[in-house]
């Protein structure tokens, strides 16, 4: 080593704690993000340019990436709308834009689509719910899930139970009133508008059969995992305590580190129990 380099090495600041358990958590978080479409390969050693306002063409990836703040875009480009073979392919560039901004950009293409980006947990970030015909829904009729508006999944195998959507495809000339709800990672302290069940994959009690367990037991399980429960019984308001010998009927995550349990003095009847979580 050159002597000056050795001298510089002598003043190197401490390298930090190295690989800690949080590093493993970060790895898990990152690889849970959907894989974006393959980009053309650059030169072997080329370092990809990182624009200040990185525009990542993946709706779901963005939702997940929000936590790292990459998904910021100028206010004028809240959406990326591309015309591909008779369809608009729409991806969200700025997950925190005002709803009116999305609306304006969609209206500019003649689309009467409301896009709501709502806070949720890491496991549901990226989930897209499409309601293809709002007027039909408002008139009390069922709206078929398979509509003219479809979600586009990331290529390759998808291992997330909610799918790996990266955007939506809308036929050009689509003239109905439609609604799209996209889950984004909640900000610290923000309540979830799209709350996941506590036993869903990626949530604290994944694969725990908690329904009709006692309040005391489920609360202890949640607290062990760093989650603070609050309780609600039918017709009541959420409270920070509940009788320990009551039964838990259902539970959702209401914010990062917070759960809301539906509890009652009796066991829940069959049929009111939440569907058994997938992937156990």
């Amino acid at each position, binding site marked *: 080593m050159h002597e000056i380099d050795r001298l*510089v090495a002598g*003043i190197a600041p401490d390298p930090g704690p190295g690989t800690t358990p949080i590093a493993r958590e970060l790895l898990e978080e*990152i690889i849970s993000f959907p894989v974006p479409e393959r980009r053309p390969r650059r030169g072997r050693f080329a370092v990809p340019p990182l624009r*200040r306002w990185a525009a990542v063409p993946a709706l779901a990836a963005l939702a997940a990436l929000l*936590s*790292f*703040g990459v998904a910021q875009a100028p206010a004028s480009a809240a959406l990326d709308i591309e015309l591909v073979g008779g369809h608009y392919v729409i991806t969200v560039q700025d997950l925190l834009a005002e709803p009116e901004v999305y609306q304006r950009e969609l209206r500019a293409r003649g689309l009467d689509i409301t896009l709501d980006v709502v806070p949720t947990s890491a496991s549901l970030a990226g989930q897209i719910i499409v309601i293809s015909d709002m007027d039909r829904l408002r008139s009390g009729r069922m709206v078929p899930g398979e509509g003219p508006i479809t979600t586009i999944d990331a290529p390759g195998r998808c291992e997330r139970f909610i799918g790996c959507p990266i955007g939506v495809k809308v036929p050009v000339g689509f003239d109905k009133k439609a609604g799209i709800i996209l889950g984004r990672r909640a900000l610290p302290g923000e309540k979830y508008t799209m709350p996941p069940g506590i036993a869903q994959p990626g949530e604290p009690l994944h694969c725990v059969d908690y329904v009709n367990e006692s309040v005391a037991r489920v609360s202890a399980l949640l607290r062990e995992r760093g989650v603070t429960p609050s309780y609600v019984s039918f017709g009541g308001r959420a409270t920070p305590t509940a009788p320990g010998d009551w039964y838990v009927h259902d539970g959702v995550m209401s914010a990062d580190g917070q759960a809301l349990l539906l509890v009652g003095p009796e066991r829940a009847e069959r049929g009111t129990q939440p569907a058994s979580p997938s992937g156990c």
Partner: protein
Amino acid sequence: MTRHDRQQRFEVIYVAHYADILAYVRRRTDSHEDAADALAETFTTAWRRLDDIPEGRDARLWLFGVARRVLANGRRAESRRSELVERLGHQLAVWAEHTETGERLAGVQEAFARLSPDDREILALAGWEGLSADEIATVLGCSRANARLRLHRARKRLARHLDTAGVDMSRVGLRAVAMTRGVM
């Protein structure tokens, strides 16, 4: 590549280089939150662009290059950090409290601080990350000849600052003293 293959390849790269990238970002920002943020963003970029990452040892250089750009892009809004990244930032802060910073080679630190950011970065890549001039060229995206020239000049400028500051050159070595006088 299936998703499983991708995850496996990413995990190998992540585990092999996490500590290096952590050290890289920590050493270049005073804010623990920013260091955690940059670390997470560097690896998130790597996950998205896994197909662009070169094989073998060069993966590390690629990651340094990304980390460098992430840091250059500046601080992100605090509200956009995940709870996990906040915890990581907190962990780094706690770690720093228990680490001696000391007045080790204070004269060298002062002289180093007087260099331009470009000079500091190239010397740090050599001294802190232990990279050769050719490897530095890869990280900085310049030609090897250019990297060698820049490294040479940066060393020379540091040696001159040390001399001006009256740092005991006997600790630095004769070659460095010679450099300050343009004898190299």
